[in-house]
């Protein structure tokens, strides 16, 4: 039997990993995937707390969170596709038209 806080530690590790990925990588696709990793970590946290507190609301929130993540991935990829068509790059360091 595994105590529920072990799952919370896994959620924390995955969340911090995703956050480092979003901050350190410059490839827009990998940034989007690191964002999905953060959302997954939060889902695990919700499910762990739902189990600890015997509350089905945690499952409902995870269900809606997956829907939100799907919508955000769709729109983010559509924006990325449009940028790639115009600028031929997915490196966000090259998207600096508004600088200076």
């Amino acid at each position, binding site marked *: 039997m595994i105590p529920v806080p*072990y799952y919370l530690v896994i959620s924390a590790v995955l969340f911090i990993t995703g956050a480092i990925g979003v901050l350190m990588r410059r490839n827009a696709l990998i940034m989007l995937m690191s964002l999905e990793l953060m959302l997954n970590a939060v889902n695990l946290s919700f499910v762990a707390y739902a189990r600890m507190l015997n509350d089905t609301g945690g499952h409902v929130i995870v269900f809606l969170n997956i829907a939100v993540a799907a919508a955000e991935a769709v729109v983010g990829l559509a924006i990325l596709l449009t940028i790639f068509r115009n600028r031929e790059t997915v490196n966000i360091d090259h998207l600096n038209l508004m600088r200076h």
Partner: protein
Amino acid sequence: MEAFLFWIFAVVGMGCGFLVVWHRNPMNSAIYLVITMLCLAGLYVLLMSGFVATVQILIYAGAVMVLMLFVIMMLNLRADSLQREGSTRAWLLAGVVGLVLVFRLAGLFSIGDANPPAAEDFGTIEAVGASLFSTYLLPFELAAVLLLIAVIGAVILSKRMTP
């Protein structure tokens, strides 16, 4: 048995999560993210949440990640544009800061008991459905509207502008 499965899913999940961030090629990162999501679905099953595990595999790993893989393959990035940015020292510093943050977060979690009491139909689709359509009906409808907006936005954004 549960401990054995837990450690397998935990180690593989965290390892693949790290590899998502680490790999240079976004295609490999996407595959590792799919494996991470499958490990998380296994962890959900260990937490007696069968419905959420099924939804995770069906929708998250099976639809969202497939969409990302399609887009990655469609973009067809050249090999020389794929590199891991940031010096080794920056990544070491990020690793240290990440470890510190994880330990600070983990210190906040109190030690709970291993098998907290749960309802008889906990985690089944009946329980989630009953809760979704009574207490959380408004967020459910709003999520439907959100998905509609996302679909419309994606269609508009990906149309080629004819000059």
